[in-house]
């Protein structure tokens, strides 16, 4: 078995053309998913059953089923429903890109809301009591005390989720999208050289992962300035 270096040098630029799509999928889904997560979190900790119950069911379903199945349901499944075909969302849901964004966002939203919830639970009860004793309202306590600390506590798990999301973007290739993985698969289909192509693709993804982790490491360090004691 020979290692075709030329093939690697040829295919890398081709695969990198899919990087734009990969990054679009990543950032768009991350933004929408995080916004959704905040809404779900507020519903979950609201203390009102008619808000927290639907949120819990949503999270349970989206964390309990494979993301591939979720993608298939949205891309292949929704067009079956007349309701969907006639809705205003149809232009988005008709396109594989739109479906991928929707699926990834809905999925990420569920995971990230649990991550944020973990952060909120990690805030020392004494701090919340001190804020209450000072007269801050529930809303003020959440915004000025709980949220800043919860965000910092959530960062490690959140950065892991961003990496997961990036890996999930590769599944877009199963619904015809030509992200990096999609391009790689077409190259392999033509050249029958899975090692060269897939291994180089793997390296590209590892670089992306490394960049994500470095960025979050930097953010974490900045947010933890006050935690490092000078004693």
């Amino acid at each position: 078995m020979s290692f075709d270096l030329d093939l690697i040098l040829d295919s890398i630029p081709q695969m990198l053309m899919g990087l734009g799509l990969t990054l679009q999928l990543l950032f768009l889904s991350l933004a929408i998913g995080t916004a959704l997560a905040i809404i779900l979190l507020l519903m979950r900790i609201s203390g009102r059953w008619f808000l927290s119950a639907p949120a819990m069911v949503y999270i349970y379903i989206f964390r309990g089923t494979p993301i591939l199945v979720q993608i298939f349901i949205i891309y292949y499944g929704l067009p079956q429903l007349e309701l969907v075909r006639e809705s205003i969302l149809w232009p988005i849901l008709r396109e594989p890109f739109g479906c991928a964004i929707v699926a990834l966002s809905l999925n990420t939203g569920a995971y990230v809301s649990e991550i944020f919830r973990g952060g909120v639970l990690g805030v020392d009860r004494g701090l919340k009591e001190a804020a209450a004793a000072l007269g801050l309202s529930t809303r003020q306590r959440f915004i000025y005390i709980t949220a800043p600390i919860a965000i910092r506590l959530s960062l490690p798990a959140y950065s892991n989720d961003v990496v997961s999301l990036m890996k999930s973007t590769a599944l877009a290739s199963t619904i015809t999208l030509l992200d990096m993985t999609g391009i790689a698969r077409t190259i392999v289909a033509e050249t029958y050289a899975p090692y060269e192509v897939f291994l180089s693709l793997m390296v590209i993804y590892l670089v992306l992962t490394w960049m994500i982790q470095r960025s979050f490491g930097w953010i974490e360090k900045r947010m933890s300035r006050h935690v490092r004691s000078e004693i």
Partner: protein
Amino acid sequence: MEVLTGWWDDFFWGSLVVVELFFVALILTVLFGLIGSAAKLSKNRFANAIANGYTIVFRGTPEILVLLLFYFGSAIALTAIAQVFDPEVKFVDFPPFWAGSLAIALIIGSYATETFRGAFLGVDPGQVEAARALGLSNLQTFIYVRIPAMWRLALPPFGNHMLSLIKDTALVAIIGLEETLFVAEQAIGYTAKPFTLYLVVGAIYLGFSTIITLTVMLCEKYANRHLEIAK
């Protein structure tokens, strides 16, 4: 629902395949996790390096890429090997079940390595010292003291790994394994009801996740039973 008549059997067998895949991958995952964490914790620099490389690669690469690489890669490798014995052989197929279980086990095993490593570090060194003082050998200490103590700490995050494992089994359909997604696709060909059918697949997986979650909760209760008196 009538659309499903006649397909229940096939879904049942497909689900059985999922269960088989899950258990095979689970055993391998625990194995890889134990070996990996031992390598990371050992003083041998070479073992450390290999284990570090292992976790970095398999945690940073999309699961589907690992699957594709293993499936096509092993097919090519096997074909090459077979051609040495019989030049007439055109293509040897590597059973997707084994390619899939191995790939998934390596992926989840890399997460398990980190989890087990943390759990081993959390074992009270006093217990280990007591065991050695009583005359137990290194191996006996490992089996009878270290592993039970480590297991209690590792259980909650390992429960999450098991959930990831069951969901990743869905990806093996991409490389042709005849499990539930495959059945769904066939059924769609006949019934043209992709939404319903993929929803069934989702429900099957949700069922599996729920069983796993409940089982883990029971195991956690059992593992912590000696602590209840202290409460």
